[in-house]
């Protein structure tokens, strides 16, 4: 079997029923997909399989033989961040970072298929991705910004749309 992982063709030695998550993490040392629940419930293992978001923990590698796999490592590099990566940085959408890779790939697929900045549509696209730190507002801000085509200043982070302004009250 083989996979094209982030543009590089890799031969796979694991057995066909090994999960795609184990193949990526344990055989290929691609560690951004996380083993959050290994039951398809949290979204932290999500990767793009031929452009579609898929739970790597529930995908047998034999089923995706020959597919193109995209992980966070393949979106962009520190010197050349993709728009989603820039937006997550600027909008402060990653806190502990453990859900971030899966969240970004679901967002990437949403934007690629022409998703708009409609917050409910973004929520629908990210359903099943669990974040316990940020409370989702900033994540949705980031995805909406990319859908709108915003440009980003990475030397600062942006205020959140969900924040209540308590300023001026004493």
């Amino acid at each position, binding site marked *: 079997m083989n996979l094209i992982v982030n543009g590089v063709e890799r031969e796979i030695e694991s057995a066909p029923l090994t999960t795609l998550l184990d193949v990526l993490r344990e055989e290929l040392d691609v560690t951004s997909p996380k083993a959050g629940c290994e039951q398809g419930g949290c979204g932290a293992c999500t990767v793009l399989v031929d452009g579609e978001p898929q739970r790597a923990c529930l995908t047998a590698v034999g089923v995706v033989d020959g597919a193109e796999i995209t992980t*966070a490592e393949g*979106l962009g590099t520190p010197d050349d961040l993709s728009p989603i990566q820039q937006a997550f940085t600027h909008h402060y959408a990653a806190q502990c970072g453990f859900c971030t890779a899966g969240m970004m790939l679901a967002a990437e697929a949403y934007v690629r298929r022409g998703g708009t900045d409609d917050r409910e549509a973004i929520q629908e696209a990210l359903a099943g991705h669990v974040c316990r730190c940020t409370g989702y507002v900033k994540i949705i801000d980031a995805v909406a910004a990319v859908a709108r085509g915003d440009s980003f200043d990475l030397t600062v982070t942006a205020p959140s749309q969900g924040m209540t302004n308590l300023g001026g009250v004493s």
Partner: protein
Amino acid sequence: MKAVGARLPRYDGIEHVTGRTTYVDDVRVPGTLWVKALRSPMHSATFSGLDTTKAEAMPGVHAVLTWEDVPLLEYGHLSALGIPADEPLLAKDEVRYKGQPIALVAAEDEDTAAAAVDTIGIEFDEREPLLDVRRAFDADAPTIHPWGNWYPHFENEMDRRQIRKGSIEEAFEKADAIVQGVYRPAAIEHVPLETQVCLAVPEANGRLTIYSCTQALYFSLGVVAAHLQVPLNKLKIVGGTVGGGFGGKVDTATETMCSLLAQKSGRPVKWRWTREEEFLCSSTRAPWHMEIADAVSKDGWILGRKMLTLHDSGAYARFSPYGLTKHSFHHTGAYTIPNLHFDGYVVFTNRVPTTAMRGFGVTSISFATETHVSRIANVLGLDPYEIRLKNANRVGDTSPNRIVYTDPSTVPVVKALAGGMGVELAAEYSAMDRGKREGDLLPAHLVEQLADPEDH
């Protein structure tokens, strides 16, 4: 001071979005063994006949760990604060909660370790568990902890955390009404996306390198060193990258056991809990039982509070005495009540031990107090915003443990809340600030509790 008020990028933001942050599970050391645990299937039982010989003989198994392998079996998580030890690292002859670890296997892979755990022989003799804090004091309740059913080692060997301030009798005599309520927030699992995980690596120089997801690096270092009975300089603990903690990774859940298995096997050892283990066996926020009786005047002053708190510690003490202490200091919430009679108990049950979680010990009382103040407003037919503003902590008021407030935020927060809800406050309330009490806001019953903010 350039950073104050500025929106700076996160120091780890670029690493996070490029998938390059190295969490414990991402550390790669050749030859790493996997760990699986034999855990108690019962809430409460004694056991005998623990037999690991089959597991030890299985191909691919490199080490099996039981209580006999632990140099110091019991060590308290908060020994530094004088809370004595009560929890064995691995169960010796009894289990006190479902999921309590009894034995561990380190093997070539996860499946082999799990198969080896299944071969371990053990016989349980189940006991009646205690699962409800309200039953702990009953004469016919099972005694489930050698110390008794509640923690007896507060200062001066008191069996409760107690606060007395002013005269509760006088407050109840003067009251126009007594408003009572019982509040019982449930246990909450932290659910970090990264489950408990540790990698312990034996080094050629005789030291152990411990990759840990702990939130409390130096606590964990001390706990591991104590159980292993080695000096701190034999341990190098690598942490700081935590895939969500929220208090649940303050406990030293995996580091000590991985270290012992690494010593015993001479191999790197990794233990990553499954999501099921995380839900069933990791510590939670405590469930609480709180009873409040407030003496109130018909114009909305809270004159006194009598309160009983039962803090469910689960099977062992861990950090709960500290959590209850914080709870007691905050037991009037964001409001100033001059006459107090508070008793709080850390109660043992056969539930998973409970621990810190965001606002340890304090969110429970915030929930109870806010609900209760609204209840008082309902009973008296008063405005819920105005009763809050009237009793709000002000500069110069004192907390239950007599800390003087210098910049209490109740007034601005309640006013912002009213504004956000579109509620129009009466002129005297919308003009309020957090400053010192005077005039109508300084009735006789609040004079004695005042202190000078300069004494803070």
